[in-house]
């Protein structure tokens, strides 16, 4: 549990403070130094426009992790509200809401996100919209399941009969039951969002150049695969490390949750 916290803190620090350690402006073009290999001056080399890759990676963390955080948070909010509405709203509402959820689930997330982001026109706004609108369904299912099981629990029914306000019931009975499970789902979706952002960036539908998002950097690097292969190693490693670390956090959280409930 402690190592999980340390990791989480490291990532927040990377996204917030990373750019402060960047030696150069990530968008500063420097043609004479284009496609240079690693050196004392440019620790990871430069790209096709002579921009420092280390600086771009560090600034890229803010785009990739920051946007993934935003997207997974939007998904969490929509999904929880939808799920609870389904659980609380009676049979008909539940049916309509859950079939809507199934309909959204009928499209593979990334395929749907590519179509939506592509049609809205490439850019950060459409990227966030496309990935949020395709990622709330899991939260909704979890929230609905917990909501339904709580509704029939004796202590919740008693609290309602005793005249506890709906807000207080939500605060004292629903939130504590929902939070742990939703956090576990959230870590998984956070990791998926990082992968989604980089995939859309790589396909050209995501964060647009010259902004240093990791997937967009890989798209640039791909053209120079033969001449400077190292250029494409770093952004991919950054994505993989972040996703791996977040997945490990999720696993540890889930294990501690299972331990607590059993």
């Amino acid at each position, binding site marked *: 549990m402690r190592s999980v916290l340390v990791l989480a803190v490291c990532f927040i620090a990377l996204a917030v403070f990373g750019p402060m350690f960047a030696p150069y402006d990530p968008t500063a073009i420097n043609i004479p130094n284009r496609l240079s290999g690693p050196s004392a001056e440019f620790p990871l080399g430069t790209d096709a426009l002579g921009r420092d890759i280390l600086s771009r990676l560090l600034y890229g963390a803010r785009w990739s992790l920051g946007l993934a955080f935003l997207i997974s948070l939007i998904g969490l909010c929509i999904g929880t509200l939808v799920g609870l509405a389904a659980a609380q709203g009676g049979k008909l509402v539940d049916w309509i809401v859950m079939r809507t959820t199934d*309909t959204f689930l009928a499209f593979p997330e990334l395929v749907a996100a590519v179509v939506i982001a592509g049609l809205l026109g490439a850019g950060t706004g459409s990227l966030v919209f496309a990935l949020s609108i395709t990622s709330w369904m899991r939260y909704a299912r979890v929230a609905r399941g917990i909501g339904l099981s709580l509704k029939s629990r004796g202590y919740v029914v008693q609290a309602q009969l005793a005249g506890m306000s709906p807000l207080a019931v939500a605060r004292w009975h629903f939130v504590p039951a929902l939070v742990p499970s939703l956090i576990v789902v959230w870590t998984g979706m956070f990791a998926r969002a990082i992968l989604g952002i980089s995939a859309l960036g790589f396909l050209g539908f995501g964060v647009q150049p010259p902004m240093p998002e990791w997937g967009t950097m890989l798209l640039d690097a791909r053209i120079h695969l033969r001449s400077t292969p190292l250029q494409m190693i770093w952004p*991919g490693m950054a994505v993989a490390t972040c996703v791996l670390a977040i997945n490990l956090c999720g696993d540890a959280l889930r294990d501690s949750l299972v331990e607590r409930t059993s």
Partner: protein
Amino acid sequence: MMLAVLGLILRASVVVTGAAVLTFVLLWFAPGDPAMAIAQARFATVVSADVVDQVRAEVGLDAGFWSAFKDWIGPLLVGDFGNSSVTGREVWPDMANAIGYTVPLALTGLAIGLAIAVPLAVLAARNQGSVLDRFAVGIASLGVAIPQFWLGLLLILLFAVQLGWLPAMGARSPTHIILPALTLGLGVAASLTRIIRSGLLEARGQGFLPAFRRRGINEAHVSRDHVAPHAAIPVVTVFGLELAFLLEGVVVVEVIFGRPGLGDFLVSAIFARDFPQVQAVVLLTALLFVVINLLIDIFYRVLDPRIGEHDA
């Protein structure tokens, strides 16, 4: 049982209808002027407003939402996906051609994934906690975290650029399928290994197994008749997830390897704002997805009659 299956089929058809409507609404209300994009894709130059208006009328974009919807859904019900707005050709033959590239790729990828994941997961589960087990879990966790398109680039770098053993771009010869299929397959293997392993471990932990063993039933029988069915449920679940993974993977993998399959078809259709083509791909994907998940739901009920007793 029949009633439950009918219920599932009804539910699936509601979802497919919803998906069709959602697809149309999304495309119809997308910002930007599709007629302009289509005209530019057709003539590959800057076009005058007259030409754009002409294209708009020709493609039917000047009609209202409902009449356009009716014009689309009517032929669709008899399996007619309409004509491309850019080339004017029928959508289906071109799409079928693309599918011809995608299906072998997806199946080869799945086969590679299974060939790696099943033995690895079985070995890992048999020796739980051993070095091999930890190695398998570690590799699988890493594999899940690696973006598919990066893995593809790494494979191109190693096998096509550095070693020069395999071709990377296009689909001219049978050997062209190896690298893209390997990219997909390694991704599939990573997620399958973890799930098959935990499915096996859970099945092994069942309380009735020691009872069978004490009664002298041999280990092969116990594995086949009692462990395997229990482990099958999570594996069946995973097939649904794997399908999504393959469909998503195919899009990026085909773009990287320049394979003229369905993913490539979709991406170029989006850029050209070719609505009939985009609609056809999205709808076909959703249909495939819903049908497979329907089969999985039915399969669950066959494997474990307890499932579905509460909801129908």
